[in-house]
């Protein structure tokens, strides 16, 4: 079983991100369970979304405390909280880079990637919503999913122009990691 924890603020699309990620694993033939946990239950408040993945049906319903992978949609969350808390010693974190906010130091064999996801999103989608660029980066950084599968999941979620932009964002996020690995 693999466990992924997403950090974001309510309204930043973390549930959609978790859903697309789970859907990519589903396309790959695996079982996934994607679910949110709201803190204050209002826009802007820190919240988590989670994805649990396995080759058999996922039954565990608790939140994720010791993730294999972490995706941080909003780097400002790292100011007030340790978003890498509980991350596996071999864990991988993919962070939406923000000027002036330093990434935490990786422990042991952990890997941390800073991705200019909002910049990619601005150029591809026209809005600074880095979620799908982060998903591309996630695929490349973890090796869990190939680019095609992730793009297939995007096609199932979006249509038209939005789909096109997001497909490009995923690709650029993916390539950013490949080129900087």
């Amino acid at each position, binding site marked *: 079983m693999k466990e992924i924890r997403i950090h974001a603020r309510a309204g930043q699309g973390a549930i959609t991100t978790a859903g697309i990620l*789970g*859907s990519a694993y589903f396309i790959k033939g695996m079982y*996934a369970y994607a679910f949110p946990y*709201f803190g204050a239950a209002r826009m802007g408040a820190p919240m988590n979304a989670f994805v649990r993945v396995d080759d058999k049906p*996922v039954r*565990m*319903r*608790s*939140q994720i405390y010791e993730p294999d992978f972490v995706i941080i949609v909003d780097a400002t969350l790292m100011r007030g909280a340790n978003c890498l808390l509980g991350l596996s010693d071999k864990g991988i974190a993919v962070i939406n880079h923000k000027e002036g906010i330093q990434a935490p130091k990786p422990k042991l064999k952990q890997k941390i990637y800073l991705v200019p996801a909002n910049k990619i999103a601005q150029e591809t989608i026209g809005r600074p919503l880095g979620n799908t660029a982060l998903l591309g980066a996630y695929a490349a950084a973890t090796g869990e999913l190939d680019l095609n599968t992730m793009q297939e999941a995007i096609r199932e979620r979006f249509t038209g122009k939005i789909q096109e932009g997001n497909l490009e964002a995923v690709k650029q996020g993916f390539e950013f990691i490949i080129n900087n690995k």
Partner: protein
Amino acid sequence: MRAFLEGSKAIANTVSLCRPGVISAYPITPQTHIVEELAQLVADGKLDSQFVNVESEHSAASVVLGASASGVRVFTATSSQGLFLMAEVLFNIAGMRLPIVLTCANRAISAPINIWNDQQDSVSLRDCGFVQLYAENVQEAVDFHLLAYRLAEHKDIMLPVMVCIDGYILTHGIETLDMPEKEKIDKFLPAYQAPYKLDVDNPLTLGFLADPDYYTETRFAMQETHNEALKMLPELFADFSSVFGRNYQCVEKYRLEDAQKAIVAMGSVCGTIKDVVDELRKKGKKVGLLKISALRPFPMQDIYNALKGIPRVAVMDRALSLGSLAPLYSEIKSIFFAKKKAPKIISSFIAGLGGRDITAESIKEIFRQLNQREVVGKFIDLKAELLQDKL
């Protein structure tokens, strides 16, 4: 068809294939996605149904009551305070023997206000006459709606059914399931033929005054019908299995065969317990789970048979009966009163109130505490530091 869907979406689309003629609901978290999706299906012309917007849950329940009394299949859904606002009507629906299906997206009750999951809302209404089914996962949540309509509308039953699904965990959880196909649903669930209905050509009345000469017998009849439903459910489950290939029971025995310790629970937490049971079994611990899928009618005989040979039993409640024993616990405990064959210990644990996360560790703690003497109403994961008396 295999799909990866949000629980609410999966439920709404399945309910849609059941062809309800009237849907009425008032939005409340975490139920809202279900009726939002149904409203969308109606607006898009994909579902030929009358979606009645109302100003409160009391009205939503009243609308489906009236519609059902006129002989059409109906649907509504709610949570928490919304269910309580419906309560007065729900007793009427059951008393009028109207086969309504209601989804309760389980949520804690106020005050203090809390939008997260526990089961206090539906458990508090266990006496309202509805059949109550509790789902472990999205697949069950979907399938139970099909079973709900079949059971409710059976001419020998004619009772409403509440399908209880844990809020957020199942309503907002996206997971892999086999979505029931229209052809199979049509095979399993024929069109609703009301045995009696409000009809100007054949006038009758429902829920009319029953004075002391008659009232008792109406209640007796409902009690008898719940017993009848208990007998009918295994047949329905078998029929369901023959069409969809999935097997259900009023109680599910998970690795109980040689178990020395077992937890009794309802709803999505059963998945977590199963994982913990497997983990402990690998270490040689003889543990298991009894999952209660039907709280009403309460499958007492099944529970007795499942637990009578297990020395140590923990009942996990995600609701309270303030001032007394926890609701599920007191009912399980009463089954074994003065029975020769019975667990040595039946302990009561309270967990997961108002969305407090139930982790694998919480479950292990319950199994550990089963080594001790019987405990009653023990709260798991209680934060002692929040109980300090300081203002």
